């Protein structure tokens, strides 16, 4: 499978990455290269083999249902370009 320029443009937009039009052909080529390597990996027969999710056998860590965090509105908002009355303020988005 190869990625054409239109698909590259769409993927970039979905990821909200600005890619100048002139760079799209090169990007499409790189993505195609990655996919063809994946296709090569797909040739290995993995029927009946569980996907490996961890190098060492580990159990997903759990937390208790206790409030241990939060309560620092000012710190949460401190990096916001615009914050008003305790809210993040962003350019209007209306459905």
């Amino acid at each position, binding site marked *: 499978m190869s990625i054409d320029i239109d698909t590259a443009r769409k993927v970039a937009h979905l990821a909200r990455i600005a890619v100048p039009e002139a760079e799209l052909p090169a990007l499409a080529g790189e993505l195609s290269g990655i996919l063809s390597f994946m296709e090569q990996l797909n040739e290995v027969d993995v029927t009946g083999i569980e996907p490996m999710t961890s190098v060492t056998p580990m159990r997903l860590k759990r937390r208790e249902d206790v409030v241990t965090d939060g309560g620092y*509105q000012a710190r949460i908002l401190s990096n916001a370009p615009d914050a008003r009355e305790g809210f993040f303020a962003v350019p209007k988005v209306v459905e």
Partner: protein
Amino acid sequence: MLDHPRARSPEPKVIAGAKSDWELVIGLEVHAQVASNAKLFSGASTLFGSEPNSNVAFVDAAMPGMLPVINEYCVAQAVRTGLGLKAQINLVSAFDRKNYFYPDLPQGYQISQLYQPIVGEGEIIVEMGPGVARHVRIERIHLEQDAGKSIHDMDPTMSFVDLNRTGVALMEIVSRPDIRGPEEAAAYVAKLRQILRYLGTCDGNMQNGNLRCDVNVSVCKPGAYEKYQETQDFSHLGTRCEIKNMNSMRFIQQAIDYEARRQIAIVEDGGKIIQETRLYDPDKGETRSMRSKEEAHDYRYFPCPDLLPLEIEQAWVDAIAGAMPELPDEKKLRFINDFGLSDYDAGVLTAEAENAAYFEKVAEGTDGKLAANWVINELFGRLKKEGHDIGESPVSPEQLGAIVRLIKAGDISGKIAKDLFEIVYTEGGDPAEIVTARGMKQVTDTTAIEAMVDEIIAQNPAQVEKAKENPKLAGWFTGQVLKASGGKANPAAVTELVTRKLGL
């Protein structure tokens, strides 16, 4: 499972188009907020109505380097819900990222469970009348994060974002397309809400958005749905549209009805339904396309690399199963069998677990039917009139139980009991003591009643003559005697004496 005969299925809703009849096919995705103290992957509070952005941890705000750690109680709540819907529990499930951009989703993705949900197939029995019920199959329940809240009306050019809800645990409960009309859809949501509230896994508060749903609607010709059920082949059904984010039973019904008629008009006109997401506008009473969502629908799901698969042990599931509360269907059946209640009364009393618990305390050691009448007609009626719920009742179940026992023992008449209820409701106190202190005890002493009967008969010779010709008029004497006794005379004893004295 309960061993009772399978109810008959309700008739599907049929809408007459210009050219033919059409049936509706509906499937629901219900988003139920998990009742928990902390969020699904952070230690921030889930409390509703807090200062904006105060219940936010750095994980929720998606600060770089933050990692999600799952709240085990939220997992238990999902398992409990699955067990309550007689569903399969998956001992291995996994989390995936659903990628999209929106200001109230700082991660740029929602952690959800697309490929391996924690709960598999189950069922909800939705009663539509005595002996009529729809068995709605549940396809799956998965755990996922809620998004934050955007407020659009505080500024003309800006939207305000509050991340307090960001990362709160949601259960998405997905039904099969087994619902066949607007009323059934609302009844399904009501039944699911009732089960969740019994289980304590979601408070079901629709106004706060703690329970909301997406409704999938399509239309087909009569007969086509049966072919789908035989084959499970969706090609027998029409193309569906999804109406997003409904949080009112009334709007769910209105939206389905509008949407079905819209689709019928298009198809009968030779057009084609486009599968799309729509929004219901309650002011205009119509659904409209959310075209802007279409491109965003490319969610590029992939397994969340921050989280190992969620493995739970059968013994842990069994422990949850062993501590399940009695569910609405079981409780209702028990009320019918043990207390001799009608289907309707049992339904009213089991609608909320709190009501059922109240009733059981009232009925303890006395007549269940009588207790049900008093709880439903007097107490619920009075509470409703004053806009209170059962938790705010000034009459405790012990007090109402005492009133019912006084009636049952023949100590007070039904009429006096209403006065007594009024006193207990407004002033409080011990019902038995009030009866004694205020001389409300029913007169069952026949000599006392006899004297009153004699007096009334002696005072009304003309009425006596009429009653002798028309025995139905004897009731007038009974009424007079009861009135003279201040409602304390036993009506049965009075009737008997009046009949005898008049020689009827």
